[in-house]
């Protein structure tokens, strides 16, 4: 199993009352799977995604990524794990302005301290079909192009897991389709992908769905 969680609990204080964003979540995801996490807003799917992405730590429970218990690691170790094992794709692209597509894609490798980032970044951009747009800044690109840059950025450190949070949410249906096709082709090459979405069509294209409600996995 690439991902195993045992009884993950995350609590928030909302004024006086305690809210359990995650209330005992246990899931397993095997290598090579393409999984959708679905549920209404407030169901805890974003919190689960943050947890799986090592951006957040559980209040209790365990999270094993690639066999390593990462639920209690210090911040800097988690940053390293995000850098090496996880590629993020966000709804709002989250590219850095004032940097070219190429520089954005190089960034994860720079934090990994890798040499020859340029060549790898160029190849990743070619893979996502942006060979001719490398020097453009995100501000001068269409939404679909931006999301492709984000996919390239997610790929460059050859991560074990790609986490996509509503990757088509800001795109029209045609470009959304193209991005999904891109993710599917990555999955076909053996990449493990987790997509958080509330779109039933997207979920249907994934091999498996994890449905969440009130902080619990319901199916």
């Amino acid at each position: 199993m690439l991902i195993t969680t045992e009884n993950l609990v995350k609590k928030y204080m909302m004024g006086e009352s305690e809210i359990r964003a995650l209330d005992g979540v246990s899931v397993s995801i095997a290598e090579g799977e393409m999984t959708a996490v679905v549920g209404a807003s407030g169901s805890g799917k974003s919190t689960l995604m943050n947890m799986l992405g090592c951006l957040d730590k559980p209040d209790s429970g365990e999270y094993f990524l690639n066999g390593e218990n990462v639920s209690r690691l210090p911040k800097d170790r988690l940053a390293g794990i995000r850098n090496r094992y996880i590629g993020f794709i966000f709804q709002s692209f989250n590219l850095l302005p004032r940097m070219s597509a190429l520089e954005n894609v190089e960034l994860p490798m720079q934090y990994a301290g890798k040499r020859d980032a340029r060549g790898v970044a160029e190849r990743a951009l070619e893979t996502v079909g942006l060979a001719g747009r490398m020097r453009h800044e995100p501000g001068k690109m269409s939404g679909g192009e931006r999301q492709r840059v984000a996919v390239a950025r997610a790929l460059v450190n050859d991560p074990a897991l790609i986490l996509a949070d509503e990757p088509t949410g800001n795109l029209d249906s045609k470009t959304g389709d193209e991005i999904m096709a891109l993710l599917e082709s990555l999955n076909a090459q053996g990449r493990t992908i987790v997509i958080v979405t509330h779109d039933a069509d997207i979920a249907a294209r994934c091999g498996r769905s994890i449905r969440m409600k009130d902080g619990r996995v319901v199916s």
Partner: protein
Amino acid sequence: MLFLTIIKVALKSLVANKLRSFLAMLGIIIGVGSVIVMLSIGAGAQKDIMNRISMMGTNLLSIRPMQSSQRGVSTGSSRQNLTLEDAEAIVERVDSIAAVSPVASNNAQLKYFNKNTRASVIGCAVTYPYIGNFEVEHGRFFRESEEESMARVVVLGSETASELGISGKQLGERIQIRGISFEVVGIMKEKGGAGRFSQDDSALVPYTVAMRILFGMDYLSNIDVRAADGADLTEVETDIATLLRSRHKIINPENDDFRVFNQADIIQTATEVTDTFTMLLGGIAAISLLVGGIGIMNIMLVTVTERTKEIGIRKAIGARDRDILNQFLIESLIMSGVGGALGAMAGIATSEIISRTSTFSTSVSPGSVALALAFSAAVGVFFGYYPAARAARLDPIDCLYYE
């Protein structure tokens, strides 16, 4: 992350906000510039004094009255204890002396027709120009006979003369000193040593006249002595001190009511004065550098808030806290560094302009430039640290969903 990449990113974000970055730097530019200018004025003044002192020759000794004290308590009529007889005794009883001049000086108003000036009126002996290496440019110095007969004659310093509008052609004219009429017999050659440390703004009269007629003093301001060439200055100093002690009935040298200054003492005193002056000016300028640092901190705090999203993205893709810290720290360091460099250039240029257009002479030392640059870099790190640490501590999730 590669150091070069961090610098590139920092430069980019500074250039993206040109006006804001420049305004933040302006504080540092002004701070560094004024530190350099102030230190250069101080160093220039010091150089002036040194020049002047060395122009007087190295054999000069000056005896000045001091507050006499016994067990730390000052006693008696201080500063009025050097007399004409002391000066005469030095001539008669101390060996290896080339010349002695009693000096009785005070400030006074000089008047020539409708022109007025305030000058230091120095009552001295005919030996005075010889002792201090002064030369007469026009006319002559007063004579021994004039000294004895208490003739009302005056030799003007070059600056005093020009203030009164007197040139070589007006010799023999009469001017008023404290309402008493004096005949101008000569004008001294300009001695240089610019500004307030010059003696060109003086007027020389016979000491007899200064003491009895102008100022009514029965004591001396100081006694200037020129030792013979090749004399052992320390020995001459000791002889003079011993003589004066016996004349003033002082047993314990700690109770001396006078002090013999030699060239080294004078240089040291002058250095101490200008050092204090320089430190004071430099200190005031350093405060403006500090204020500049606060400006940088302010801008960095704004930058961190504006770039919260960027911080979140960077953290999500693997930036550690210290990567974020370094990035912002280097940004503020570049700001203060570039500001420091621009300030140094501005400071050097301003010193040059000051020395060309005013009576202050300035001297920019490499040390003062290095000091100001180092200080500005330190200011950048010190004031950049808090905003950078704040950025580094931010939670990645909060940042990612920050709008």
